């Protein structure tokens, strides 16, 4: 029976597979915890290193900052009781008293000084250092007073006051499973790629959260996320829902679904060094040729609103009276004719000119690209769609190796974002003016906007910037993505934020009676 060893091997193989599963029994759902599904892994929960959206949102629940933004991107007190700009180079913050970290240690100005200096230390390689480059010194005035000195006037400085505060002495790039904050939740477990578990801080200075804790489960597949919700093993999903899955969820679950205007801005980037694309009429023609409403209706299932520019209507600096380019292929053709790009054979197959369009390999992005190709072909522009994996795509965009591409901006707070996107000094690697836009008038306005501390004046300045950009179209606005929240009906107290912030999870509780749709 020489076959025995082979079958024995097969049996050992199967046995090993079964045995491999035994040491890790299925974890039970922790009682009173809210389970949230995320598409991607938060990479760093230390606020000094958190840059991706999920990391920033979860870190915001573990850590407090001097200020936090409200739903209109205005700064509101958090650890700071109040603050004052002594002059355009000096900001004084007065801290609230009696706030403690999760380990019971009082939070004082020394912790704030440490956190900012830790970010500024180049050895710590913090990605938050860039925006703090104008911060010259952080001085302790007392245990609850701290002074920030800048090297040059910089109105958006307050944006940096949303940095989460860590206890003094926390090493840079510390083991993130032992992070200590002062927020409504403390970190219980961080298993990269799998889950983040937060435990309610019962002695939180604003009051104990309404749930025992939060579990952020990383579920990369869109179908699996929806099925987990259907099965009841996920309670809450925000935005990580494919538009195609929403009708299924509505039909097959009793989910409470909220859709509301978000701030994520999708646009087409344009290379202004390209001989055809540098002509403004061509860019305007492309803007007229794109049927945003149809794409939103059919591909995005209504989960977006046509955009006029970077800042959404919920932002304090939003300017509504800007030039708009609704779908009008005939006007697009007229503009192209006038710009000197006539259609060589009328309705025939020859295009006026050819352009390439770069996007990522994500299925939805590819489908949107195909829609653009079809719509631009109607006005005589041939579009060659090129899809790349993220690293290659982003590398090409930064180098200026593109004609057209599409990306989105997430987490816009201060309108000074326009400086890094459109100032002539902000071309990569010094900024994100990837299209190489140069306009002295815009440059001047952006420099003024940086210096002025007067909100009304800044509103006027950035209103002017928005009007010029809407006409010049260095980037072609597409849409603002709507936020979608899918949650169990017994969840009460969640307030959606336009930027997808999860701050209000501290007020969430499991209600005995479900809310009505």
């Amino acid at each position, binding site marked *: 029976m020489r076959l025995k060893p082979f079958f024995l091997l097969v049996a050992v193989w*199967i046995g090993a*597979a079964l045995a491999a599963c035994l040491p890790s029994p299925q974890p039970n759902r922790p009682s009173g915890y809210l389970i949230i599904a995320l598409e991607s892994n938060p990479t760093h929960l230390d606020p000094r290193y958190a840059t991706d959206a999920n990391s920033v949102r979860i870190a915001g629940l573990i850590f407090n900052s001097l200020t936090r933004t409200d739903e209109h991107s205005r700064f509101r007190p958090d650890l700071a009781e109040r603050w004052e700009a002594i002059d355009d180079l000096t900001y004084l913050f007065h801290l609230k008293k009696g706030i403690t970290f999760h380990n019971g240690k009082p939070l004082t100005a020394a912790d704030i000084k440490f956190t900012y200096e830790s970010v500024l230390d180049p050895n710590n390689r913090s990605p*938050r250092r860039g925006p703090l480059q104008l911060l010259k010194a952080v001085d302790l005035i007392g245990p609850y007073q701290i002074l920030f000195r800048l090297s040059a006037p910089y109105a958006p400085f307050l944006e940096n006051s949303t940095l989460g505060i860590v206890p003094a002495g926390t090493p840079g790039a510390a083991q993130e499973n032992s992070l200590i904050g002062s927020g409504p939740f403390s970190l219980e477990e961080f298993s990269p790629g*799998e889950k983040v578990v937060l435990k309610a801080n019962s002695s939180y200075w604003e009051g104990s959260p309404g749930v025992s804790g939060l579990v952020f489960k990383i579920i990369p597949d869109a179908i699996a996320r929806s099925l*987990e919700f259907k*099965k009841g093993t996920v309670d809450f999903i925000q935005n990580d829902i494919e538009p195609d899955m929403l009708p299924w969820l509505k039909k097959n679950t009793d989910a409470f679904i909220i859709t509301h205007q978000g701030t994520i801005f999708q646009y087409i980037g344009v290379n202004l060094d390209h001989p055809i694309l540098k002509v403004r009429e061509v860019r305007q023609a492309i803007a007229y040729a794109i049927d945003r409403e149809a794409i939103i209706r059919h591909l995005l299932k209504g989960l977006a609103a046509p955009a006029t520019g970077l800042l959404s209507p919920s932002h304090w600096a939003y300017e509504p009276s800007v030039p708009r380019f609704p779908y009008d292929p005939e006007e697009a053709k007229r503009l192209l004719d006038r710009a000197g790009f006539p259609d060589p054979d009328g309705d025939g197959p020859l295009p006026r000119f050819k352009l390439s369009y770069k996007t990522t390999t994500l299925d939805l992005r590819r489908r949107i690209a195909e829609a653009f190709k079809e719509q631009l072909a109607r006005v005589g522009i041939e579009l060659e769609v090129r899809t790349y*994996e993220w690293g290659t795509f982003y*590398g090409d965009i930064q180098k200026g190796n593109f004609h057209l591409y599409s990306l989105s901006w997430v987490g816009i707070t201060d309108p000074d974002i326009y400086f890094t996107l459109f100032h002539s000094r902000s071309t990569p690697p010094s900024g994100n003016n990837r299209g190489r836009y140069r306009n002295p008038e815009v440059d001047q306005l952006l420099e003024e906007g940086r210096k002025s501390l007067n909100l009304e004046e800044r509103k006027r300045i950035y209103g002017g910037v928005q009007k010029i950009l809407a006409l010049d179209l260095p980037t072609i606005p597409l849409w603002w993505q709507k936020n979608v929240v899918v949650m169990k009906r017994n969840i009460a107290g969640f307030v959606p934020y336009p930027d997808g912030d999860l701050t209000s999870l501290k007020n969430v509780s499991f209600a005995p009676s479900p809310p009505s749709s």
Partner: protein
Amino acid sequence: MKRYLLHRLLLFLPTLLGSLTLVFFLIHLIPGDPVEVMLGETASSADKEALRRELGLNLPIWTQYLRFLTALAQGDLGHSLYEQGGVTELILIRFPATLELTLAAMGVALCIAFPLGIMAAVKKNSWMDQSSLIFSLLGLAMPNFWLGPLLMIAFSIELGWLPVSGRGGLAHLILPSLTLGMVMAAILIRMIRSSLLETIHEDYIQTARAKGLSEWRVWLKHALRNSLLSVITIVGLQFGALLAGSIITETIFTWPGIGRLTIQAIQTRDYPLVQGCILVISTSYLVVNLLTDLLYHLADPRVSYGR
């Protein structure tokens, strides 16, 4: 045999070095900058340049390559540029999950393929043969990204027997291993059937029958054993491919394996992590190939490893 084993083990080094070298240059040559990912879009060009210098990314690629080899020779795979922790730690967390899934999928495939393949050959042209053919075609035609969700809907949502996704106990392993194992089983069924049918007409089979052995004994002891070589080759190749990461299945079932880790590392241009993953994947392939070769001898003693 010992001499053969030693010879094969000595071949490990140049093969590994070759694959690592290829990947090293490819990942460095394709566009993308890890420093952009690490420091974010708002970092100054001076900071980015300083970090490039610190990581040695400003050095000529040959110098970087030599540094990498020196560190590797000292057993140092370095630190991930993007994830927390050392490359070795990250791989040690993920690789057992991949091994667990691969072993289970292989178990599923063998358990399905052997009975069905043998039945199909023994009862050639019967309804059993036709059924196994249909099963095999279905298995080959169903892509993982379709079969996975289908199994989830059936067993997790409708029947409620199993969890939808994630890694935990045995229950979590069943659906992903079925998804992966089905395709492999489909290939093996056809392979076992055709190998058996080829062997069954050999003279020694007629001899075995003439000796009065029972038909099942003839099939299982004489025919199957001699048909195993081609089956072992396919099993070995498939096993290696699964260890290299079943990215789609790992993604669908939220399985924290090395496939997903490798893809994330490539996307973020996390050079040390990519190298570490490729090292593990290449080594797995080599080990599985070696085991496959040794199994040949076990299945058929006529296979010799001598000169």
